[in-house]
């Protein structure tokens, strides 16, 4: 009895290939059943996210299973070209290690991202509900979840934000006592300012004011964020009551200068002010950051912090691998001592006993 994984990810395949290979979330169970019918796998699960497509399986014949799984991927997606070169294959020890690494986010585009664990859980649940998992994969996935949880809490692999928006939110939380009573002003609309404003909103920012040269766009974004839109000429009057400014206008020169800001800080009674300047060319004069109780971050600063956090996560990979090795060894021991039991369990099935999931396959 052996474990096998075949798949591709963001490193081995470009997005054009990945999108064609992706399985629909709703049809995942059905696809798993088709897979079991078409391959000599006793148990199987399909993991499909925007960055990876992988099949995990238990088989008694690695060579035949490998060929059949590759064929299945081509046929199921009705591919005309050959994707062989994008596929990787892992067996037994490597297969288990790979699943552990995937679950921990070590294999993700952004190292340590946590969304993947939820996606692996979904893949497992879909396979389980379709009756495609058994003694081996149930244990494998459950141990992978436990391992991922353990590694996440004992290492810094998930620490530190890795996107501009979430870095800005982290900083806001280190300046203000509670975001709930704070007002955010979005100056100029754009993808990045929208993402940052949303991140702040999700973390509980009190009220949001959106201001853009085009009133219509301001109103659309304000509706999305649950804030209010004001006309562009109004922003200086609203400014003293604002605690966080996200600026991304297309203005060629700085619109907020230290000279303008100094009297406003007096009006605010020196309450802290957080300025996030994601415009290029910059909207806020660099000298503003030197004023007392003003904290200014531009796009480069935020990106640099995000990069540092990614680098810090990458430094944690060694520690993660050491922990993964422990979990891996434990699973290998279990798998080794249960091989016989698995063989006995699936011996009948190999002889062609009628299987409930085959009936299911035919029905669908």
């Amino acid at each position: 009895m052996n474990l096998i994984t075949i798949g591709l990810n963001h490193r081995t395949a470009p997005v054009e290939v990945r999108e064609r290979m992706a399985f629909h979330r709703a049809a995942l169970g059905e696809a798993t059943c088709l897979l079991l019918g078409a391959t000599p796998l006793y148990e199987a699960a399909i993991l499909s996210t925007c960055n990876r497509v992988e099949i995990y399986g238990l088989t008694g014949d690695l060579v035949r299973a490998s060929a059949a799984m590759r064929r299945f991927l081509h046929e199921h997606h009705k591919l005309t070209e050959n994707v062989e070169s994008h596929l990787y294959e892992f067996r037994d020890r490597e297969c288990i290690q790979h699943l552990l690494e995937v679950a921990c986010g070590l294999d993700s585009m952004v190292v340590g991202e946590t969304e993947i664990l939820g996606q692996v859980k979904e893949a497992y649940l879909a396979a389980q509900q379709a009756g495609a998992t058994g003694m081996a994969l149930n244990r494998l996935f459950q141990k992978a979840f436990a391992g991922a949880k353990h590694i996440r809490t004992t290492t810094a692999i998930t620490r530190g934000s890795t996107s501009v928006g979430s870095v800005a939110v982290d900083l806001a939380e280190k300046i203000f006592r509670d975001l709930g009573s704070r007002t955010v002003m979005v100056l100029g609309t754009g993808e990045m300012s929208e993402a940052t404003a949303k991140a702040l909103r999700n973390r509980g920012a009190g009220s949001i004011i959106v201001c853009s040269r085009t009133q219509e766009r301001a109103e659309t974004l304000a509706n999305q964020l649950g804030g209010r839109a004001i006309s562009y000429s109004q922003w200086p009057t609203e400014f003293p009551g604002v605690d966080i400014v996200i600026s991304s206008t297309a203005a060629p020169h700085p619109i907020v200068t230290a000279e303008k800001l100094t009297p406003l800080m007096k009006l605010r009674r020196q309450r802290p002010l957080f300025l996030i300047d994601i415009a290029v060319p910059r909207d806020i004069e660099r000298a503003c950051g030197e004023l007392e109780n003003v904290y200014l971050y531009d796009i480069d600063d935020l990106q640099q912090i995000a990069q540092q956090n990614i680098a810090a996560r990458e430094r944690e990979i060694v520690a993660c691998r050491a922990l993964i090795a422990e979990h891996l060894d434990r699973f290998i021991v279990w798998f080794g001592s249960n091989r016989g039991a698995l063989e006995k369990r699936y011996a009948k099935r190999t002889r062609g006993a009628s299987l409930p999931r085959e009936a299911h396959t035919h029905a669908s």
Partner: protein
Amino acid sequence: MSDRGYLWLALVFYAASCVLTVFRLRKSRLLPALQHLNSIAVIGGLTLHTVFLLLRGHHIGRCPLTNPFETTVFLAWGAVLFYLLIGPSYRVSFLGAFTAPLVLVISLVALLGLDDTRRPPPVQPIPWVVESHKPISLLACGAFGLACVVGGMYLMQERQLKTRRLTPAFLQMPPIEQLDVINFRLIVLGFGMLTVGMVGGMISYRIVGHWTTPKIVWAVAAWLIYALLLVARRMWSLRGRKIALLSMMSFAFVLVTFWGVSLLSSLHRGTP
């Protein structure tokens, strides 16, 4: 073991907390086990610290505030006590970790450099007003000491935010605005207690009929400094870094002059 032995033991606990702090500051991950260890170290230190004060008080038959050594140790004890009162209600991580070094330094100065001549127990019972005005004033200084610690934490976090260079521990430290608020509340508390202590001192003068001039000058100076700090914050909306810095400088000034004055008054006491 002499009562000073208990204090030395307390310092071992505080020193352990300092070592843990340095270790924690270099890690970016939350280490709950170390956090617990740190709490245990601080609470252990405070317990032994209290044992020392009780033994000493029992020995000399009054509040152990009769010489510069005792008063300094009492002041440090006040700072830890305020940490234990305030820490849990604000859930400020790292506050205990930063309090331990200050308490360690103050107590070391007391143990190594300050006069510890024991006074005989009083012949007559001392009226409670006379007896209590000193500990109240010193507890006020403990609050100022903790405000100084909070101010230091503020400066550390603020510097990182301003220079945009974030250390691994940045995310674990409390927000600067919260540190600012705690600093303010501690100073208000300390100021209130110092005021009460000074009124008590005035009443004591009426009862006892004599005073030690340097101590009164010191108390009035401390009172004025902190009054000015509060006015600066309220009236001139001085906030953040400046207030943090001022609260640290004020405490340093109060502490150093306190030692100077204690020295003076013990000389004063030495002459018949």
